[in-house]
Structure formats: C-alpha cells, structure tokens
C-alpha cells in the first residue's frame, strides 16, 4: 500500500506500476512516430490520449475498492447499453460496427465491457463458497455469454475472445469446479466443427487457415503475416535503426501504427529491442502477480487477477499474431499501439488495479 497524505485528501498510488506504465507510454510515442512514418498528426492525437489516459488512471485509482464493488453492476449495464446503441447507431467501418461516434471522439464500447465484466463477476463471486455452485456458475456464464455474443456479431473476434477469457479468468480464479471445467472443455471440443462453420465469418476462417500454411498464398491473405515476419526477421540482433525500417516505411507492413507495431520495433531495434520491450511487460506482470497475492480481500484479488490477465492476454494475442503463431485478429499492443478506447481502457484497468492494491482495509472504521 502506498499513500501520500495531504491536508485535504490522501493520494493512492503504486510507484512500480505508475513509473513503468508512464515509461512504456513514452516509449510507445517514440515508436509510433516512426511507425506512422513521422506523422505529427497521429503523434499529437496519441499524446493527448496518453496524457488524459495517465490522468484518468490516477483518478480511477483514488476511490476505495468498495466503490467499484458496489457500482460494478451499473458499470456493466451501462456498457451493455452502449453496446446496444452501437448495434443501432454505430458507424460502420470495413463491414464492422464497433464504434459510437461522438464527433470529437469515437468510443468502442466493447473495450469497456472488457473491464466491466471481470469487475462485475468479481463482485458477484467474492462471497460465494468454494467450489462455486452450479447456479452461480450458470449465472456467470450467462453474463459472460451475453457480453461475448454482443461483440462477436459486430463482428470483432479478437475483442470477443478477450472478453470471453476475461470472464472465465475470474470464474476460474474464484474457484470454478474442476469437474465443470473438464466437462465443458469436452463439450467445447465436440462442438468445434459447429462453431467453426457457424460462428466464424469466412474471412476469419481464412485467417486461421492462413496461419497453418502462410507460404501457400504469400500475396493474398497471408500477406500480412509474411510481411510481418520479413520485418521482424530482417531486424536481426540490433535492428536497422530508428526510422530506418524499410518494411514499415515503404508500406510493405500493414497496420504499422496499430496491430503490427511490434514488427516495427523488431525491425528497427532488433532482437535486443524486442527483449527490452518484453522485459518491461514482464516486470508489470510480476508486479500485478505480487499485488494480487497480497490484495486486501477476495474481491480485490479477483479483480487484480482478472484485469492483469486481460492485459497479458492482449499482449500475447498481439505478439502471437505478429510473429506468426496465432491467427490475424485485430488486437493492439497495450500502451504502444495507437488507438483511443482500447488505450484508455488499459489506463482505467491499471487505475482500478492500483486502487485495489493501494487501499488498505479500513477495519477500525
């Protein structure tokens, strides 16, 4: 617990997370400048997001965890309401309806559900005896399913999988019975062909097929993976130098400022640069691991655990996609990729983690 006492109010923070996230954000801005081919417009916009994101993170870390516990239901209902608005009023980009356009700012409500869902489940499950009984399990699964299907039909496979996982992380950490896990896993395996044929869009199936055989069609759907691998591989040990990546600067690499920004880092800073970035992420994860083990109560434990696992899942889905061992799904690299709501959602998530970690339980009150 870290606490700065001022005359009028107390300031709650965690120095390790605060410093490493601010540091990561600044590195992100520097890399984004090169990845956007020195576009000042993108950098100014991203700087504004980073600035307000850090302030938001600090603000969000001030309330007591009880505040989140009590209001988690409202947060979730509000997020689902925004999702429903998106279905009717969302702006369509490339056949997907994911955004609510507020003129000065486009909001992606699925990014909010990503946070609201695990907090709600933590607040629902924190006082349930072990193992979680069938009724609570089904209720949790119902909530998870509603959130999941609202997103999967946007369509947004990447985010929906993260939301699905976020829900199950909390359910699992809260003590889901092994028997239930075993039997539902068996059902999942059996229903895979059905899911493949009915749930996935053709382009999503294509992306997964591409993963297993990228060389079969290097200039078609596999273009992204092929170019990403070339970018990473040609970086070598120490990289081509800042701003000197040919793959990113000559437009061979797709989505350089968002999904494939790791390839830019690997191309320009090489293996050493990639290791350095992974080290920072690993440091943050270990800190979250430590904080969740030492959280003040079960609700905080579950929330820190759930939110930090969303963070690590996002990182690994992105890296797995960029290095070519997972299918191509839209997934940003947290604190590095450009992007509005997704970036802000991680500042909010870490704000809540810091809140959970830095507020001691006020037993005497």
């Amino acid at each position, binding site marked *: 617990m870290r606490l700065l006492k001022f005359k009028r109010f107390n300031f709650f923070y965690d120095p390790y997370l605060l410093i490493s996230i601010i540091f990561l954000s600044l590195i992100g801005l520097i890399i984004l400048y090169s990845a956007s081919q020195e576009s000042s417009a993108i950098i100014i916009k991203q700087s504004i997001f980073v600035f307000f994101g850090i302030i938001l993170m600090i603000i969000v870390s001030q309330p007591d965890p009880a505040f989140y516990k009590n209001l988690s239901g409202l947060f979730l209902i509000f997020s689902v309401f925004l999702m429903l608005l998106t279905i009717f009023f969302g702006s369509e980009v490339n056949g997907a309806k994911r955004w609510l356009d507020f003129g000065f700012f486009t909001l992606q409500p699925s990014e909010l559900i990503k946070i609201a869902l695990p907090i709600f489940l933590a607040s629902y499950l924190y*006082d349930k*005896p*072990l193992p979680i009984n069938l009724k609570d399990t089904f209720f949790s699964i119902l909530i998870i399913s509603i959130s999941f299907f609202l997103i999967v039909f946007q369509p947004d496979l990447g985010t929906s999988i993260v939301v699905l996982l976020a829900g199950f*992380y909390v359910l*699992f*950490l*809260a*003590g889901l019975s092994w028997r239930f896990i075993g039997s539902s896993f068996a059902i999942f395996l059996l229903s895979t062909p059905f899911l493949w044929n009915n749930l996935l869009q053709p382009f999503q199936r294509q992306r997964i097929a591409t993963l297993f055989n990228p060389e079969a069609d290097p200039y078609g759907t596999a273009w992204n993976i092929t*170019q990403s*691998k*070339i*970018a*990473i*591989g*040609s*970086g*070598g*040990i120490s990289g081509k130098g800042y701003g000197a990546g*040919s*793959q990113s600067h*000559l*437009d*061979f690499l797709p989505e350089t400022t968002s999904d494939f920004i790791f390839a830019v880092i*690997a191309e320009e800073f*090489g*293996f050493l640069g*990639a*290791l350095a970035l*992974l080290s920072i992420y*690993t440091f943050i*994860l270990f800190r979250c*691991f430590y904080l*969740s*083990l030492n959280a003040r109560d*079960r609700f905080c*434990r*579950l929330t820190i*655990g759930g939110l930090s*696992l969303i963070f*690590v899942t996002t990182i*690994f889905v992105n*890296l*797995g996609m960029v*290095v*070519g*061992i997972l299918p191509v799904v839209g997934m940003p690299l947290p604190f590095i990729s450009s992007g509005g709501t997704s970036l802000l959602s991680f500042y909010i998530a870490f704000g809540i983690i810091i809140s959970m970690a830095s507020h001691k339980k006020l037993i005497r009150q």
Partner: protein
Amino acid sequence: MIDLQERFIERRSFIYRLFLIYFLFGTFLLLILYQIFQLQISNYSEYEIAALENKTHEMNIQPIRGLIYDRNGEVLVKNVPTFNLISIPNKVNDPNSFIDDIRNFIDITLEEEAIFYEKFKSKARYNRELVIKRNLNEQQIASFEVRKHNYPSLFVEKRYSRYTDYPSILSHALGYIGAPSDAELSKILSEALHPRQETIFSYGNGFISGKTGIEKTFDNELRGKFGEKVYEVDARGRLLKEISIKNPEEGKSIFTSLDLGSHIAANKALNGRMGAVVAIEIETGEIVTLFSSPSFSINDLSNGISRDKFNTLINSPQKPFFNRALKGRYPPASTIKPAIGIFGLENKLIDWNFSIEDPGFFTLPEDGRIYRGWKKGGHGKVNLNKAIVVSSNTYFFSLAYRSDINKLGDHFSQLGFGSKVCIDCFDEDPGLIPTPEWKRNKLNSGWSLGDTVNLGVGQGYMVATPIQLAYYSGMIANKGFINKLSLIQNQEDSFSELIALDNFKELDWNKLHRAMTDVIDSPAGTSRRLQDLKSFKVAAKSGTAELVSLDSKEDYLLIRENEEQRDHAIMIAFGPMPSPKYAVSVVIENGESGGAVAGPVAIEVLKELIEQ
C-alpha cells in the same frame, strides 16, 4: 459470508490457480521468444534478403544494337534517335475518341491510325506501350508538351529506330528486324540479369530481333548485353528513387564484305525487273553483291508497317520478299557449258582439237529423238573453244551423251552445285543436281539418256541459285579452288574448296579463260554486243533458261506472248582478265536473252567493282 477457514482455503486455491495461469503464459512467452529468435537470429539472412527484394525493383535496360558496315566502312544500318509519341493503352478508355483528341494538335495519318487500332487491344491487355507516331518534328513535340497535362496516357520519348539510308537496295542482304517470337524472346531475356523483370526499352518497337538476312544470322553479335536499373519501390510498386544503374553493353558492329556501290549499280541496271545479282571477290570468297529484285523497304519492315501495305507486298505476284539471290531455283542453261567442257577434258572424252559437225541439232542414236540448238542450220565444224564462244548446243549434247551421269554429278557437286555455298547466308537454297537415284525416288521413273543429254546444256531437272552460279563462276576464274562464300570481311575461319583434277592443267584453264573471254570479244561470240560497254576484258558465259520444252522457234513465239513463260536470262562473268578479281552471276527472270539482257547488268556491276 465465508468463515476464516474457508478464506484460507479460498486464498490458497486462488494462488494455486493464478500460478497455473501464469505458468501457461510463461510457457507461451518462451514460445514467442523462440519464434522471435528463429526469425531474427537463426533465419536472419533469409529475411534480410526478403526485405531487400521487397524494396528493390530491378529493370532491364535494352542494349543498343550494333551497326552494320559495308566493305569500305560505309554505314549500312544504324540506330537513329527518334522522338515518338507513345501511348499507354491500358489507361485509354475509348481508342477512337482518343485518336480524335490527338488529331486536334498532331496529325495522325490513316496508316498510323490503322496500326494503333490493330495493336490497341493486346497492348492494353499486357499493359505495354504503343507507339502512335514516330519521328515527331520540333513543332509537333512542342504542341504536345503544352498539352501533356491533359493526357496522362501519352508521352514523348526518345527511342531508337533501326534505319538504313538504302532501304530497298540492300534489303535482301541486310534483312530486317521485328518482334521476337516467344521462343526468341525467352532466349533474349535469359541473357538479361533479371529475366522476369520489365525492360526499359531503347527502341521504339520494344523487343527486337533479326528476322532475315545479316540481322538474323548475326543477331547474337548485334544484340549486345542488357543493363539494369534498380529502383526503390514501395508496397504498391511505385518507383521511389533510383538506387543503381548498370549501363547496357552495345552490340558488336558487323563489318560485312558487301559493297554499297555495286548494289546501287545492280539496282540501277536491273531497274525493277525480277532477278538477282551476286558478285564475289575471287581471292577471298567474300560476297560483295547480294542483290535481289524487286525489293521492299527494310525501314518499313523494321519500324512498323500497316497490314494493308504489308499485304500488298506479300500478295504481289512479283514476290518482293523472295530472296532470288539465295533461293531462286533456275536451270543454269548454257552457263553450265564450261563445266561440261572441263569434265570432257578431265575424263579424256575430248581434247581441245576434237571437233564435231554441228547441223543445228543432236540426234539421240538410241531412239532418234532430236535435241535442237539455238541456231537453225548449226555452227558447222565445232571444237570446244568454238562450242563455248558460239554456245553450240549440239557439241555439248553429244559430249554429255558420252558422259557417265554419276561422275558428272560428282563433278557438278565439286563446283558448288546441289549444296549451300555460303557459310553465313540466311536461308540459302541448296539447288539440285539430278541423279538416277534422285529421279527414281522423286519422280518414280528411270533415268534416261535424254536426261543426261539435257544436262549438257544446263536444262532439264538441274537447278542452281544465283549465289551458286557466282561461286561456280569464281571457281572457274580462280582455276579450280575458292573459299566458301561469306558475308563477313576478313573472315578468319574461311576454308578453301577445290576440284580434284588430274588431267585438266594450268594451260587448260588459260585456254578456257580465253574461250570465255572470246564469248564477248570474238566477233562470233554470243555476247559480242557487250564489247563496247567496258574498258577491260571480261570472261563470261551467257545462258537462256527455257521454262517450257519446245521443238521449234515458232512455238516459242507463241508462248512468249505470256510474259511468265518467257525464258530466263542468265550470265556468269569474271574480270578483269587475265587476272580476275571479281566473279558475278546475273539472273533476270523472263529476260529471254542471257547475253543481251543479263550481260549488260553483269558488266555494269563489274565496272563498278573494278573501276571504283
């Protein structure tokens, strides 16, 4: 609420489960690190090359073709820079209105328009350029330049044209260039550094290769080597900047043995009649004249010709594309007589004093069939010398009658008949020496004595090309040996051919030369009318090749109404005597009289060669 015991169990379960998940992620992290290691360290060089190939775009630069010179250093074929109006059909929507638009500021002829429409579709499909108008003048360039922003699919560029100042005179010898066939193109491109990349053209026609003549025979030497230009490109293939350039290597120039002046003289002397003139330098076997008439403009053929104009040429009954000098098959007629004489002396069938009585015809003893001479009443008492000078058919009928046909065939073949005599000519016809075996296979009938008799005056089945006649003429002039013919000056790997003769000696050669000189210089000679046309002595033998076998002069007067059935005029000659430098053969189709019609042409060419 759950109690303390349960809280302890719950916390332990949480730690256990979180640790499990982190362990799984740790494993996954190792997997990602391993993959990054594979990409960046293990397979670095492979990906480094892939990235380099991505960002570079190589283009071949077409080499400039070598020049073709005549034996005196005169340029026969050169590359002329022209400013061409070039379109990119792929970017043109409506070719008709496109041409109409251009007409507003540059005149497009109907022929140019026709070529444009003809090639538009295929050029658009393969995204190739199409030349609309060649040789823009300064005013045309200027009027395009001020409007060019309106025409993204048009540009003016300097491109070379293959060009000769003597397009019709040398067309058959030089040949023309054209678009290579698929096989030729893949061979040409295989010599480039980047066979599968696009090419920056130096020629208005794009890829070119020799199609006929010297352009074809020496295509490899003339072509040169491709250069390359390397650009940096982005993912859309846009060229960003030039990284490096390697200039193409110009093709080798060809120094031919051809003499420009003699072609001009031959052209003037033939004056459009169908025929051929071949002249060679006796000492070297170099071809100095290789002329066929009528002709066509190789500039047109090489640089674009409309289909109409081409069809007119190819459908012309005069067959202007037919290279008569190399492929025309003519009976040698009386020009064969010196060869028969050499055969008679060598085989001791006759000597110089041996004479016969010529009544104007020869009767085949076996069946009494009559073989007529060209002069009614005959030439009286005739020996070999007189037989050559007056061209007595009876003498050579009877000599051939006494000859062994197989031995005679060998003899002809040593003189160059029946096989190709030039080592580097394009598409030469070997002619034909008829033999009993040939006749059995080809005509399915036996050899008759009459066939041999006909051979004595160069009629019947035997055919020779003008270049064979020139070779034969040179062989006689050089007294029995000569180099195989070639179009290249100072040919290093030339080899000499000779006739194997035991009984025919230097003295016999001199007598033969004297007899052939008398063909012109003797008052009785068949070509005595040529005497005054020259200031040096020329040995010659004329011939008149009959196309229809007839029994009397009256019959011929009937058939000569039809020009195509008139006799071919033939002449072989060499001079100046007594030490000849050049040998020449002339064939004029349907020219009728060898001495009177083909003779002056031969003299004009020899004069040009000797007196220039």
